[in-house]
């Protein structure tokens, strides 16, 4: 997980200016594991004033797998990064991670609550899913539940 964050920082280190960075995010937006159309409904919507985000999570072999989408491309690119770091991890790993890479690649402004683009709420929601699966695991004492 730390390694993925380091990788991302290195990747973004190649770009000198914002435009290349944004172009890279546009590229990344295409790699996003897109949420199934059937989940693109209000229950899965994280409403921001500027852009909207849909998020779903499923448990596979004790690991949380996320899918998501957004109506704005830059937001979608950032989601792709978040998913790259957090998806396929155990609930504990997800809950402990502080996503330090965001600051290092100069995208912190995009995660300010004042931006109201749904990203802050999305990270919170990702962690909530992890917490919910963790609680469920402890209760049932087994992994592999999907939902």
């Amino acid at each position, binding site marked *: 997980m730390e390694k993925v964050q380091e990788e991302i920082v290195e990747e973004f280190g190649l770009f000198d200016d914002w*435009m290349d960075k944004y172009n890279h995010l546009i590229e990344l937006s295409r790699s996003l594991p897109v949420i199934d159309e059937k989940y693109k409904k209000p229950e899965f919507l994280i409403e921001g*004033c*500027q852009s909207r985000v849909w998020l779903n999570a499923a448990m596979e072999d004790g690991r949380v797998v996320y899918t998501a989408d957004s109506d*704005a491309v*830059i937001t979608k690119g950032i989601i792709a990064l978040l998913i790259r770091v957090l998806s396929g991890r155990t609930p504990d790993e997800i809950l402990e991670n502080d996503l330090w890479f965001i600051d290092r690649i100069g995208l912190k402004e995009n995660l300010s609550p004042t931006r*109201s*683009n749904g990203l802050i709420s999305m990270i919170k929601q990702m962690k909530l899913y992890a917490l919910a699966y963790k609680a469920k695991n402890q209760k049932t004492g087994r992994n592999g539940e999907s939902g």
Partner: protein
Amino acid sequence: MLKTDKLEYNIEKIRGDFPILHRQVHNKPFVYFDNAATTHKPLEVIERMDRVYRETNSNIHRGVHYLSDVTTREFESARETVRGFINARNDHEIIFTSGTTAGINLAAFSFGERYVGENDEIVVSALEHHANIVPWQMLCERKRAKLRVIPMDDHGELDIEEYKEMLNDRTRLVAVTHVANSIGTVNPVKKITGIAHEHGIPVLIDGAQAVQHGSVDVQDLDADMYVFSGHKMYGPTGIGVFYGKENILEEIPPYQTGGEMVDQVTFEKTTFNQLPLKFEAGTPNYTGAIGLAAAIDYLVETGLDKIAAHEKDLLDYAAGRFAQIDGLKVFGAAREKISVISFVLEDIHPYDAGMVIDKFGIAVRTGTHCAQPVMDRFGIRGTIRASMAMYNTREEVDRLCEAIGKVKEMFG
């Protein structure tokens, strides 16, 4: 012979009066096109307020000491300046508030308490900002009254015939915006007021987007109440004006209560002070009021007609340039418009566009502009809005067009 408004309008001098315009953003010269959200402040305002804090600061109306007296006189002189600016009959019809929102809330409470009951109706328009919707909605909930909405057409103009039909003997108030913040439509408020008055219905006008773009005469409009903010007209934040006709202000109860606004207080009963103090509970923002007067002086010195002509030129120029950009669609084509252009780029999310435009050092607003019903009317989730002011230039419009070109290249 060639002397025109344009030649008289010294844009270089004006830009020189606004220190913030000379900074850089993202290492580029700063272009500010978010003037409908707030405007920048000329030196005249900044220095005037600085002087209050450095030289004369004291609470007003209370002390007998020298500085209290000086500040009280400056505060009351600011009230006189505002009165002259909107041509109200009397100084005491000018109530200082914290802004337009506070003024509308005052009206919704005080006027509502006095005049609105069950099954009564309040009329607003489809062009309102949330601040001129929600306080009335809350009032209607409290009083079990109904909120009616004047519809608009595809150009963003209100349907006056529908409006006429809407008025009846249960209508207690019409509350409309003078100018729409989201798409710039100038409403025919004089006509709207005249029609309401034929039925004996008073009218509140939200002037937050109007007073900085041209002369407003509340007597000529025959507005019963008129509200606006200081910070959108080159003045400080936290100060605004609620104008009400004397007879209305006398009739309606105070909104907030506290010091200064009372006459006699015992634990059994309190009697309230005369206008305007009846509506100015607590220590007013006297520094803000004095700063607002400085902004008004600045606008009047520059000439509101000249400002309007300059902004019209900018609007026409921008509309012409935008018309040449493929896939750019403008919302709001009212015959009378202020210098606001709200637009979308085909298949590009306004947020994505705004992020790239920002990197050019250009400030535009993206989103719903706190006017979701307007966006819903056009079936969109938001726009990019460029709102231009007295200090903007054609060259800045060119830079915005250049940025839009880049947006299209990146996302198109």
